[in-house]
């Protein structure tokens, strides 16, 4: 067995979930953090002009560029594990990080 999935109750922003795993004599500690980066924009840019309102969950170039900036400026001591797909109309996008060497 290589991976375990565990429920994490009430894991909010600005919190660090610390998971301790003990196998026999060996103990490993993992630290996870969910960050929220801005996702909303004032106006859709031209790349989205062809999309209908129903398709509008498709990211705009501005949103993607903002996400790129946020990811590249993030603390290098943490590695990106997963980008969560934001809900339609969301103002923030959530990204899961794990502390390096943890």
């Amino acid at each position: 067995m290589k991976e375990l999935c565990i429920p994490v109750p009430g894991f909010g922003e600005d919190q660090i979930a610390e998971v301790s795993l003990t196998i026999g004599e060996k103990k490993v500690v993992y630290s996870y953090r969910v960050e929220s980066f801005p996702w909303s924009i004032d106006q859709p840019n031209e790349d989205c002009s062809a999309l209908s309102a129903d398709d509008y969950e498709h990211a705009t170039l501005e949103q993607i560029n903002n996400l790129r900036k946020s990811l590249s400026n993030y603390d290098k001591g943490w590695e990106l594990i997963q980008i969560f797909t934001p809900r339609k109309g969301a103002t923030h996008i959530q990204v899961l990080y794990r502390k390096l060497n943890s």
Partner: protein
Amino acid sequence: MNNNNFTIKTKELVKVFRTEEVETTALNKVDLEVKEGEFVAIMGPSGCGKSTLLNILGLLDNPSGGEFYFNGVEVSKFKEKQRTNMRKANIGFVFQSFNLIDELTVFENVELPLLYMNVPSSERKRKVEAVLERMKISHRKKHFPQQLSGGQQQRVAIARAVVANPKLILADEPTGNLDSANGEEVMNLLSELNNEGTTIVMVTHSPSDAEKAHRIVQLFDGHIVTENVKKIL
């Protein structure tokens, strides 16, 4: 074809799927370069374009726009026959669902790429025997896929992918249908092949599988949003 080392490179690659009512941009100006001997993992949420990108890199599909250089040759507008010829000579595929042919034995499944390449019978036999031995599955060569476990089926699929000695292996969620022990074995096999010089591009949802790669590319909504170099070649 140029004489440089094997590379694949995309410039502003676009893929749009259209139906009568809906237009979906699966890839939006993707720039990606993979050099010879690299092991690249592509990650991202479901629907972000990972498999679409892999299909284009594997010459299974053409992009809607942009450029795609396969070993120095611009292939984005290749016809099906040209793509097939280039694919047969250069690429091995490993899929999540193995994609073995149920009616053929293990030996015959692995032999298939060599048949398509018109390799003579004696050479086919030698190559297939050697790769089955290497994948530790030769004792099952007369069995049919459904008589094998998932891990064994994936080992056969990897044998089929490498039997023609491809420059590039494309793997789409190769451990997705396996338990962790078999998954680890498959990842070790891919790492071993990479250490011997085969370039690998793998789509995965698994962070631990991605850790085997030199570089992790994160796709989101058809865009590359970040690249993380894990190991220096």
